């Protein structure tokens, strides 16, 4: 078998040669590379990778971009045209807000965060929102103890270890105790070339009682050569804090995305995920939530719309490790063309996690005979006083519903779109921002076609 990826030790060395990078992070890269080399490349014989055949991917020659060719821009208007094009909705948003990006906006172009705008009042209060590269230099006391330690330890996975060795982008968000911010922190990750390898690594730490929302959006155009994005996001939500983490992936049609996002949620804290997958060629996304403190809760909402030969592989873990924890995961997908999806979800309840409630639901609609959706929800329960349930459906659009709507004048395609929007509604209504929700609905509309 030929190698899936063409990275080598020299890539780690080249990235580490950056003089601004501190020693501890260089060491981390080294250990992570070692772990990566020692772990076998997953195959379909591994339960976790049963539905995604990595050997068919054509990403051996993707290049890591350790220093982006783009330099920092002061003003939104100064972005190169290809970036502006990908940010059209955000540009409107900023304009409507009189040029303000409060509480914070970071834009990463290839591997470089080239635009940063953070509310200074928040900075004074100790809030940090910056690129990961800046964070390891300027805030080692906050970053070092979390970076690939307890949340996603080095060696846990092949791809997360590779990410730790070669990471070349990402953000750090730190919110001190008790700070509540209504408006969302936002980041965009843009790729404006084919053949790239992006290893995005993010870390979010919320101290006790902090409440924030973070919206992350990945975008690129379609290019002729395949690219790879392999992200890791680590999240720590301390006692009584709450985080809404929304991530929308809208890569061009030749991006392979293999990402792991994981949160550790402490006592009475809550972690809400929103996951939207619209673009990409092959997307493997993993969302794991560990409820380690009593009274911790999580709510995950996800949706995808796949077309052509897109492949979506979703893995969700709800891990109850303390009493009185609650979890609810709802994941909805629509598939057209020859697209393919798999949902695997696991509710895991440990012995001490009594009085927990946990729900896992996956619903799929197939719009073509050639599309296929698999759904594998599972329970692993070791406590006796718990409520847990899971459900999964794969079906077609209801002919009677279509006829009913058509009998009110809607064309067939308008009727189908309305039913699909209705299908997604329980997920999309969790998006507060009307501009963002509208942007997503428009994208769905366009992708569904006439």
């Amino acid at each position, binding site marked *: 078998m030929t190698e899936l990826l063409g990275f080598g030790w020299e890539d780690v060395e080249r990235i580490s040669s950056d003089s601004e990078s501190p020693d501890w992070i260089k060491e981390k890269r080294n250990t992570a590379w070692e772990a990566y080399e020692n772990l076998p490349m997953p195959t379909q014989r591994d339960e976790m990778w049963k539905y995604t055949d990595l050997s068919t991917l054509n990403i051996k020659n993707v290049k890591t971009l350790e220093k982006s060719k783009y330099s920092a821009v002061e003003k939104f208007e100064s972005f190169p045209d290809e970036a502006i094009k990908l940010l059209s909705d955000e540009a409107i948003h900023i304009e409507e807000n009189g040029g303000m990006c409060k509480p914070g906006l970071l834009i990463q172009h290839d591997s470089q965060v080239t635009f940063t705008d953070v509310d200074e009042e928040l900075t004074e209060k100790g809030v940090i929102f910056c690129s990961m590269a800046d964070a390891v230099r300027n805030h080692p006391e906050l970053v070092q103890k979390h970076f690939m330690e307890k949340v996603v330890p080095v060696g846990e996975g092949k791809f997360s270890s590779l990410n730790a060795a070669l990471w070349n982008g990402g953000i750090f968000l730190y919110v001190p105790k008790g700070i509540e911010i209504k408006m969302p922190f936002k980041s965009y990750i843009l790729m404006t070339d084919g053949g790239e390898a992006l290893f995005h690594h993010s870390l979010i730490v919320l101290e006790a009682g902090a409440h924030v929302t973070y919206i992350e959006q990945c975008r690129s155009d379609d290019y002729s050569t395949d690219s790879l994005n392999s992200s890791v996001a680590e999240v720590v939500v301390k006692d009584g804090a709450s985080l809404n983490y929304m991530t929308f992936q809208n890569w061009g049609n030749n991006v392979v995305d293999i990402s792991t996002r994981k949160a550790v949620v402490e006592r009475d804290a809550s972690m809400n995920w929103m996951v939207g997958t619209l673009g990409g060629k092959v997307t493997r996304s993993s969302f794991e939530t560990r409820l380690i403190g009593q009274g911790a809760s999580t709510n995950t909402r996800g949706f995808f719309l796949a077309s052509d030969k897109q492949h979506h592989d979703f893995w969700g873990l709800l891990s109850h490790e303390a009493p009185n924890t609650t979890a609810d995961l709802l994941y909805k997908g629509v598939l057209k063309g020859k697209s393919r999806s798999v949902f695997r979800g696991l509710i895991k309840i440990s012995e001490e996690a009594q009085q927990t409630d946990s729900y896992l639901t996956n619903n799929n609609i197939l719009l073509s005979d050639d599309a296929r959706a698999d759904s594998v929800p599972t329970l692993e329960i070791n406590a006796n006083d718990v409520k847990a349930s899971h459900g999964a459906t794969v079906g077609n659009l209801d002919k009677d*519903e279509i006829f009913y*709507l*058509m009998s009110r004048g809607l064309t067939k395609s308008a009727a189908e779109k*309305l*039913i699909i929007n209705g299908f*997604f509604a329980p997920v999309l209504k969790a998006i507060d921002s009307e501009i963002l929700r509208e942007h997503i609905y428009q994208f769905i509309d366009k992708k569904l076609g006439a």
Partner: protein
Amino acid sequence: MTEKNGLLTVENLKVKIGDKEILKGVDLKIGPGEVHAIMGPNGTGKSTLAYALAGKSSYEVTSGSVTMEGENVLEMSPDERARKGLFLAFQYPSEVPGVTVDNFLRVAYNTIKKEELSIWEFRNLLKEKMEFLKIDESFSGRYLNEGFSGGEKKRNEILQMAVLQPKLAVLDETDSGLDIDALQIVAKGVNELLPEDSSVLVITHYQRILRYIKPDFVHVMIEGRIVETGGGELAEKLEEKGYDWLKEKYGESGKDSD
């Protein structure tokens, strides 16, 4: 008066579902502003006629014709028929999860009326009709028919009719399952919320709705045919005598007897 005959003409309509012939040659003429009623035993094909008029795809028309204002309805898709002014209040309306009543009806209204009413403009229009039909305001934000009671679904059908202003409203057992107050409200809606020259075809088992919506013609359907046509008094006679006398005359053995 030539246009008196002009709205809907059904001639010798035969409809199959699967292998089974349900409508065996229906003739019906409805003029502008007229109110017609169709009565008949269960399973004789009344809903089949309603669905065939609305264009449900599993209903195969094997012969006959349907024209509306001279145009061939059978060649039109269900949405074209709706845009032409045909409306069917369903006997069993579908539930459409996630689609709110107001959003759906605004899309329908804008499509049929070829307008572009904003959410706010439409909301006012809808509110007025809802008040008339004594439908609680909260219904506009609810998902279409989801969790609606039987009576609420029926009232919601009439609300849609009132908003879309059809030329011909076919009401398939809209009166079934309504309490007495609701029946009066719905009847009042049919009488007062439609344009003056709109026509109504009421499919019903009960004479009581016809006390409020006065029919110009009452038809009786037996085994896929309209076998008897009369005025309001025919409905009274059916209520009194049932269908047996007609079944004997036109059913199984009796058919083609003259």
